[in-house]
């Protein structure tokens, strides 16, 4: 029996919105520590990992480990019926055929209830080790989104070069080239807008911009985004959620066609 109550439906709405374009069907693995999700895109070069800890729900009850195989398209359709401020309750039996979603509007006592049919999804699960990254950049999520959007107008890929001076996003395309350079700075008034760079050694990697812009759909979830880079390992783009929950994206670097 699973029963998880979210005070604000918008969190789940946004999470699903952010990943539904990357993966179509995925298992929501529920256990007593929370609800986790791991899925790869069709080409298997990017990976989404989400964890909503039990603390994010009130209350959270999960007696047995359950995998809820859900089509994200269907989930989006149902979540569209929820308003951002609705109280959302997820329910499922121990061996469920359906997952039940209840949206309660506390203001006008409106309760809507939906069942989504579950599916059996056979996905491989990857173990992601804790990695000490060579560079960790924290910046405003909107800033990162803007950079990706702007540069994707010029090129398909962006090189992210991190030195102790700062971080440089650069691209080269048919119509020309462009770059955005960010220096480390701390904004006391608006801490979210500060740029923090934690560097152990300089790195320079190239990534697909199309994927990065896709990741940026999660920008509404968090004010800041954390980019972690190391040579020869996937880029980690992390959006922190409440109570140490997170939404992480991994993207394989482009190797061999750097310019």
């Amino acid at each position, binding site marked *: 029996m699973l029963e998880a109550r979210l005070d604000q439906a918008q969190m789940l709405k946004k999470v699903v919105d952010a990943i539904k374009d990357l993966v179509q069907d995925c298992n929501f693995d529920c256990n007593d520590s929370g609800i986790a999700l791991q899925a790869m895109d069709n080409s298997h*070069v990017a990976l989404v990992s989400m964890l909503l800890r039990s603390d994010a729900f009130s209350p959270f009850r999960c007696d047995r480990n359950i995998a809820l195989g859900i089509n994200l398209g269907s989930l989006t359709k149902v979540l569209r019926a929820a308003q951002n401020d609705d109280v959302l309750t997820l329910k499922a039996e121990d061996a469920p055929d359906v997952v039940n979603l209840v949206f309660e509007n506390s203001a006008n006592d409106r309760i809507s209830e939906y069942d989504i049919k579950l599916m059996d999804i056979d996905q491989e699960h990857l173990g992601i080790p804790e990695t000490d990254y060579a560079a960790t950049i924290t910046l405003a999520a909107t800033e990162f989104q803007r950079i990706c959007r702007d540069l994707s107008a010029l090129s398909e890929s962006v090189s992210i070069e991190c030195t102790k001076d700062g971080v440089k996003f650069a691209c080269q395309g048919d119509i020309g080239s462009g770059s955005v350079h960010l220096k480390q700075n701390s904004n006391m008034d608006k801490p979210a807008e500060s740029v923090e760079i934690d560097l152990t050694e300089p790195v320079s990697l190239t990534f697909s911009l199309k994927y990065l812009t896709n990741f940026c759909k999660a920008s509404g979830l968090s004010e800041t985004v954390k980019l972690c880079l190391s040579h020869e*390992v996937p880029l980690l783009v992390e959006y922190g959620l409440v109570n140490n929950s997170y939404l992480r994206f991994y993207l394989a670097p482009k190797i061999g066609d750097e310019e």
Partner: protein
Amino acid sequence: MARVTRSKPKPKEATPEPPVSTVKPLPSSASNPPKLFVLPKDASPDARIVTLENPANGAPSRYFFCPQEGFYEFTRIVAPKKECRSWLITGEESEEQEQEENRIGAGYITKSADLFVATPIDLLFLLLPALAPKTAKDTKQHFLALDDYLDKLYASSRHWRPLTSQHSSLKTTIEKKLRATCDTVDAGDETMYRLSNDKLLAILIKKAERMVKHGLPPSLEERFIKTALEVPVMNIKREDSSLSTISISEESTENDSQVSTTTTAESQTSISTAITTPDTSTDSSPKSALSTPPQIPHLLRLRTSLSYLSTSYLPPSLHAPVTTHAHTSPTFTPLATHLSALASLRTEAAALRSISDNMSRKRAIEEDDDRVFEREEKKRKKEEEEKKKKSEGRAVKQLKKVDTSGMKKMSSFFVKVAKKT
């Protein structure tokens, strides 16, 4: 032959009355409606309807037994579905019907227009289940005394015992039949019997010959003889190609429908399957010039009636010896060669057909169940994929177009683990 197996008004006895008849109508309800029987004219007053084991399928079936004339089986004649549906049974003679109804009281209308005709059946066939080995594999047969066989009969249907005890003549007839079909061994003053396939075959062939002598019924003749021996018209011989196309497609339709139109239902169906082999193999013949040797139709008729006999009257365990005989014995060799000659030409004609006539080639493919299934599967998969494609959003499609060259798969960075849940 669909034999009536239930709901026959039990107390009914064959009236010795001349032309036939005897339906003792039940009050009025439809639970056990009267049935129309055509019974033998000169049946003795002792005649009975008995329930005996059907030799072909072992099901208990009704037979008409007359101590003098022997056994009769019932053949149900069913009016075509669309035509007259009921009998009006009255006390008077009704002009149209070929038999008259004896009727007490006012008229009665039976719902079903079935007519049960009693036709003589050789006692031998009724004995065969007791004589034949239980299964086809069980080849080792023992010599048994007449009484042992009678016991077997009693065990199969309980009507046998009263019949044999009441009519002593029956016992002697049975013994005569046994002598005709069995190898015998004298043990003391008792004679022991064992079914002899050769003797049985000889009898069957005699019966078949008698059946053929006056020609097969038109429906059988049409289905199994004419069609089977039809010489296909080859394109080469014809100047007008469209004509030849027609003749070929006609053939294929004939080939397809194998359900015979004879009055009988069940056993008939099984016959048609049994005869499928000759039927298909004959279908085409070498050039339109190939002539059918005069003895061939007779042989094929013989074989057809043999398999008819075996499917409708022989226990399953006896089918194999009969069919092997019908296919291998020297008598039938000319037939076999002729049929194979036809078969080889048939493939030729089929090949030609597939080139010249696209329609029939399509049909040939469709007839192949496996391929149909495969195609359906493919189609289904394709549709599923298309549906999936349609359901995915624009962004997903765009992401598919992304150039992922130089990007390694996630699994090359992270190790696969077994799922914990």
